[in-house]
């Protein structure tokens, strides 16, 4: 079975990359192929990376409160590129009140501080598009 391919991205101006890097390593150790974009990526850069890397999953790490601007743009660009089946998950400081809006956008997993790595790995494994189906 082909490995799940994950792009971990840090959009926006925020430089707090502890979570992004820890998750990237945990997913890699769990057997996934992980590409970390580095800091301050625009939605355009993130979607381009997902396209080039043939990603099954995009993991966005946002701690600055800019998720309501960044997530819709990432989803819009994915749709534009025909990548609707890419699983988009989000980690960071996300207030309760924003959860329904993010779910409606199609952000299927939102992971806040204190989430066990296991839970994220299991969620990604269960929900990433199957490689066989995508070919």
């Amino acid at each position, binding site marked *: 079975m082909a490995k799940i391919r994950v792009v*971990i991205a840090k959009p926006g101006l925020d430089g707090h990359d502890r979570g992004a*890097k820890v998750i990237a390593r945990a997913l890699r150790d769990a057997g996934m192929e992980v590409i970390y974009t580095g800091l301050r990526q625009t939605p355009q850069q993130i979607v381009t990376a997902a396209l080039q890397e043939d990603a099954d999953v995009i993991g966005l790490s946002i701690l600055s409160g800019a998720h309501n601007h960044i997530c819709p743009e990432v989803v819009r660009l994915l749709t534009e590129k025909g990548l609707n089946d890419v699983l988009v998950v989000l980690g960071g400081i996300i207030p309760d009140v924003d959860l329904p809006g993010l779910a409606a956008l199609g952000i299927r997993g939102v992971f806040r501080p204190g989430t066990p790595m296991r839970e994220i790995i299991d969620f990604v494994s269960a929900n990433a598009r199957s490689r066989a189906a995508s070919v």
Partner: protein
Amino acid sequence: MTSPTEGPATGKTRWEQDTLNPTLTRAPERGREFTTISGRTIERLYTAEDLAGIDLAREVAAPGEFPYTRGIHSTGYRGKLWTMRQFSGFGTPQETNQRYQHLLAAGGTGLSVAFDLPTLMGRDPDHELSLGEVGKCGVSIASLADMETLFEGISVADITTSMTINSPASMLFAMYLVVAEKQGADWKKISGTIQNDILKEFIAQKEYIYPPRPSMRLITDVFAFCAAEVPKWNTISVSGYHIREAGATALQELAFTLRDGLEYVQYGVDAGLKVDDFVPRISFFFNAHSDFFEEIAKYRAARKIWAHAMKDRFGATDERSWKLRFHTQTAGVSLTAQQPYNNVVRTALQALSAVLGGTQSLHTNSLDEALALPTAEAATLALRTQQVIAHESGVTHIVDPLGGSYFVEKLTADMEQGALAYFDTIDRMGGMVEAIERGYPQREVSESAYRFQQAVERKDKVIVGVNDFVGSDAQSVPTLYIDEAAAARQIEGLRHLRQDRDHARVRRALDDLKRAAQGRDNTMVPLIEATRAYATVGEMCDALRDVWGEYEEVPSI
């Protein structure tokens, strides 16, 4: 085991044989090894034997005396309590000004400004990269006009202000100075702190703009300017806080922070400054994490290391250069979104460790900060936590109450030794700037972050409400919500500002700034003139981007 020729066992060995071992046979301990949150192994018991190699009179000494292990004040907190300085800022300058008035009315004794990400990154609110970020995790300050609003009704001569700003520290400091000037306050008398610590940005928080070397130049310009013009200002707050938050161990926080401090002193000396002319205004900023005694030992070791380094390595003769003064903030990274009320307890214990470690000022986090910026109620409770420690616990009656504890003194000595070993490694690389350019401290911190996360996953480290004692007690707390109105107001304000100001004066000032950056003139002088002309943060930072370029990190995991 003691061999027969050595006679009967004494001390700890005898105790182990006679008392401990029979107990262990009957009732084993909870684990094979006990470690701190940083992974440091802790023995079962510490006794006088552990202090055998330590010259207590010389290395620990008395409070107020070199090397200040027991504190820099002979009266501890009996003379003056620490400054209760709550970091805050959000939305527009008007909104944050109201929060400041509230904090000062509630008994806060200093202000601490949190800026939003566009300000921290030297971008104006209307820049494309600022989209969605304006006023979100701090207050938006685009120009002198915003700074004037931020301090409206607050006399800067009567308070001290700390500003958490790094890459654009000179620009925001220039704005504060011009506000002081307009309020009629004397630059020679005002006091406060700018964080101005770029090295930890490269290591941990990653809010850098320019490459390391020109960034260091901006900092030494502030050292020189303040030594002459603003002598009571703390020109830098060398910060371990963010290094720890990024995942460092207590030892790494201690070692990298103090080594950063040495780097700043070296660059100041290389820029032609006399050690005793600028080192007394260097201050520090540490994290108060959850492992109680390790944190206390960290603060005590920090004072000792700094005192020796300033005296022995740099030949400082003014005792103010030897005394390490520090601010502390409780560990944001320890806060959990689950069962948020537990955060009040975590924060109280962390704050107590900072007090027992002799901090000069303290910020206590609010219970809701794993979810959002704090509400006014949560921020007030955080301040009350400090007031309970200060006025009810009794720990402030005595100077360094843990001094002489076998465990604390041994741990302090061990932390010092560990930090000095890190110094050797970094010195061999050529210094901290060179170590950062090689990615050394960055890698060390990432490794520790990952190791800790694995320990949590294995439940080697328990986090109440997260990986144990999860229960079904879902708690929901009210949170502060920052909408887009702040961004709209800031962008509108900026549009008016750009129409109303003297364009020729702004352009002249920015040209002067570029010339200073290309040459050797102190950049603070043209920055103050640009500020008076209402140049924006983005314009001032762009002028320097034109000269120095921007730094980009190579991503790695």
